[in-house]
């Protein structure tokens, strides 16, 4: 893809109530249920479910960041990448200690309703992982 060196991805990281980040990126790395997936400009249209809850983005300015996107999904079409997650957050916005505490609390509170508890744990795990990678 030498002739596409000028190309970039238009990335939007969208949470339910706001757009968390929007900008241009060189590469987006996301883990879907089938494994890690690197998306470069010119990628085929794709709809995938995210697993593990983190997305890594390298922007055109060679900045690198990690975002938490628990329970989200990714859609790629015409060099537009949208990452949708109800509780999307930027990794460096998350307080690492707080995220650890939240995860412990989520683990501890696991008696009420099974499905809800699992969801809380997954969200807490994703936030913690994103915070760790961002540091």
């Amino acid at each position, binding site marked *: 893809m030498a002739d596409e060196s000028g190309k970039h991805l238009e990335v939007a990281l*969208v949470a*339910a109530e706001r757009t968390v980040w929007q900008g241009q990126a060189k590469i987006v790395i996301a883990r*879907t249920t089938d494994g890690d997936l690197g998306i470069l400009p010119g990628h085929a249209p794709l709809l995938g479910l995210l697993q593990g809850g983190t997305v890594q983005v390298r922007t055109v300015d060679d900045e690198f960041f990690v975002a938490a996107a628990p329970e989200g999904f990714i859609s790629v079409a015409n060099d537009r990448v949208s990452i949708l997650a109800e509780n999307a957050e930027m990794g460096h916005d998350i307080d690492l200690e707080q995220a650890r505490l939240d995860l412990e609390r989520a683990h501890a509170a696991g008696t009420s309703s099974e499905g809800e508890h699992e969801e809380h744990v997954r969200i807490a795990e994703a936030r913690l992982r994103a915070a760790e990678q961002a540091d």
Partner: protein
Amino acid sequence: MPASLRELRERRASVSTIKKLTRAMELIAASRIVKAQQRAQAAGPYARELTRAVSAVATFSNVDHPLTTEKPNPRRAAVLLITSDRGQAGAYSSNVIREGERLNQLLREDEKEIVPFLSGRKGIAYYTFRQREVQQQWSGDSDAPSFARAKEIADALIEAFLTPTDEGGVDEIHIVFTRFVSMLTQRPDVIRLLPLEVVEGEEPPAEDEVLPLYEFEPSAEDVLDALLPKYVASRIQYCMLQAAASELASRQRAMKSATDNAQDLIESLTREFNQARQAQITQEISEIVGGAGALADATAGSE
């Protein structure tokens, strides 16, 4: 004299206090409406992307999902009624409740049993007063609904929909809410939420826009499984945000006319007060004049 001066003065004072209150509520509603609109705008990208994704999956796969399948012979219908938590919003709540009653009537004519779900204290009060059974109710944030609340409602509705009818489930779900048309117009409206109809968001993708041929990870069925509940939650959130903006707009308008009416009342009370005061002065003068005359007559007669 129609009323004593003191009474008039007190009434005028109390009306001007009320005017200050309604004026404050008007201003609060006006400032919140901007926030509500911003919130609706902020939720736009998520809803748009989700709608695109769902249409893409629905277009390129022939999957039968329980949430999109019409049930034969629907017998039980759930109605989610979105009202406000507080009054002072003119006819806002009664309009949407009336629309709900009309829908209930229609459903009853189709011989369907109605299972009410309520959001907002006003609707809850209406149903409680009539001692109707309510399946589930939510209240507390009608003027600034959070996504978490919308998701909670969506989960409850989806669960009811997926439960077999004989075990207390429902066959279809309708939402009654108020659509925010403009600052001046808000219209009560009904949409059928489930089974999902043609995918159509608040901003459907343009007609000539060809959806790309997507690859699905892991598979179209799994993607649809994960997307549809999110889509339902996003639609409910859309309805709640519309309702919140409508509530604030109605409140602002109701409070504006209350303020105007209070001003009119103050003016007419002031006029009445001045008249009464003048009448009293006139009476006192004529009493003094009359008294002086009588005194003069009396002294003239005694001499």
